[in-house]
């Protein structure tokens, strides 16, 4: 399998911004100094129309990452080759530098849930999802980055720590890792696991990208539960964990994600500048 195809230029180890529809016009009109943008792949599956035309224009000036939410790589059903082929056409159109998906399942049978559902961390699931990621990569003709998801529940029969599961998926399928530091924090808080140890267990070479986002803390029947809402600034605890990740893994392209209660674009620029500060302090420390 050829995984070296069409990487126009590498994304720099700098901060990028998740681009959402309400900000597109402003970006086209003002061409802000942003290192790179990431969009949700499925939003650009359509063969025509304004959204894809605008992304063509953005792609001419910025490096781009495609981030999928609907491929359902962890599902036990046959791989949805129609979806993979649409992604492949989207990749061909926009020549993204990075293409990523999630370590989860989003469908069962013919029903899609449009939510990132956790896998049981078992040898069975590990075998299954690794093969499926391999199939998807083969059909796409390129390597995927696979992201760890936030989770709110665990399965009784899970036997493998998530970090080990993620590391092993990458080793077996040849995929890279999109390490979502906010998701690590959210899941660690929700399940009482060790977020720093998680990061220390991931091999630096496998990590192609880092995600940062805001979460909310909810009180459910007297128990705190963190929800990966993408509706707030990154919390200080997650910045601290990110600093640790930059220290352990080295500087990596880092994305600010914000999906609901979307603020003005300048707020995202400020978050990205903050991430850049962490990345540069690592450079300074290394020099």
């Amino acid at each position, binding site marked *: 399998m050829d995984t070296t195809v069409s990487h126009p230029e590498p994304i720099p180890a700098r901060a990028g911004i998740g681009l959402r529809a309400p900000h597109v016009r402003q970006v086209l009109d003002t061409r802000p100094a942003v290192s790179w943008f990431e969009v949700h792949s499925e939003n650009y599956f359509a*063969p025509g129309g304004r959204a894809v035309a605008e992304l063509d224009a953005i792609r001419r000036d910025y490096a781009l990452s495609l981030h999928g939410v609907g491929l*359902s790589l962890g599902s036990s059903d046959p791989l949805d080759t129609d979806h993979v082929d649409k992604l492949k056409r989207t990749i061909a159109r926009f020549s993204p530098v990075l293409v990523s998906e999630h370590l989860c*399942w989003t469908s*069962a049978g013919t029903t*899609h849930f449009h*939510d990132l559902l956790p896998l049981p961390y078992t040898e069975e699931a590990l075998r299954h999802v690794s093969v499926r990621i391999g199939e998807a990569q083969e059909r796409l003709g390129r390597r995927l980055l696979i992201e760890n998801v936030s989770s709110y529940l*665990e*399965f009784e029969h899970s036997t493998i720590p998530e970090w080990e599961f993620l590391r092993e998926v990458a080793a077996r399928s040849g995929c890279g890792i999109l390490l979502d530091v906010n998701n690590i924090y959210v899941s660690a808080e929700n399940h009482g696991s060790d977020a720093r140890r998680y990061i220390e267990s991931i091999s630096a070479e496998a990590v192609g990208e880092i995600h940062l986002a805001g979460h909310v803390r909810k009180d*459910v029947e007297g128990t705190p539960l963190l929800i990966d809402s993408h509706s707030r600034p990154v919390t200080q605890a997650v910045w601290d964990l990110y600093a640790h990740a930059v220290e352990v893994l080295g500087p990596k392209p880092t994305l600010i994600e914000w999906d609901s209660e979307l603020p003005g674009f300048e707020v995202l620029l400020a978050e990205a500048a903050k991430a850049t500060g962490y990345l540069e302090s690592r450079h300074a420390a290394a020099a």
Partner: protein
Amino acid sequence: MQPLPELQHKLGQALRSGVVMDLPLRDRGLSGVRRLQVYRNNHASALREALRAVYPVTERLVGDAFFAIAADAYAMGNPSHSGNIQDYGGAFAAFLGAYAPAAELPYLSDVAALEWRRLQTAIAVPHTPMDLEALAEVPEDMLPNLHFHHQPAARALESAYPILSIWEFCQDPEPKGRLDPDSGGERVLISRKALDVEMRRISVGEYAFLKVLCRGEDFAAACRTALDSEPGFAIQARFAALVQDEILTDFYL
């Protein structure tokens, strides 16, 4: 140990029905069942928000509370079958047509159909306009025998209610005056010009003319049907406009 396919099948059923049966969920502080509820809420909310994005005028007509209930009722019988949420919601208009709580708004279903169609037109594959020089070279006596292709995104809708007037009325954040939904039906032509979606009312004759042409019948048959339904139908002017507006995009013998 529950095999993965069985686990995913059962968990999926629980997400849709709310009934949790025989799932190996860990209780930690919160019960596994309560934890699953977070996912159930996310799932319901994702589908609701997807409909809200496609049907803003329908939502304005019924209000957000009614819309949310209708959206949840639709979701019960219409699971999503695509990993791309933009594909979800195509049967909402038909659902609303049979949805008893909306029976007092008989135009609602047709307005929803207009919104869905508008979105499909907006994201359709681009078209190439008619080659006007080639068309001009066709001898006049051959025109009756010509057949036409239309732009793939173009559709004509017919309703017993003034659906485009209702749609336009709702674009104004503070509509003035009053719109009578029983003021007569409208036929609407929805099409693309470059990246813009255009919607305009068309007459009974033009609607018939287009329907016949789009079925693949020839120009003469389309003219006959159009004149039958609207004796004064201005064939030449309307045909020229349909070419100019890039509704008709190619011809063949």
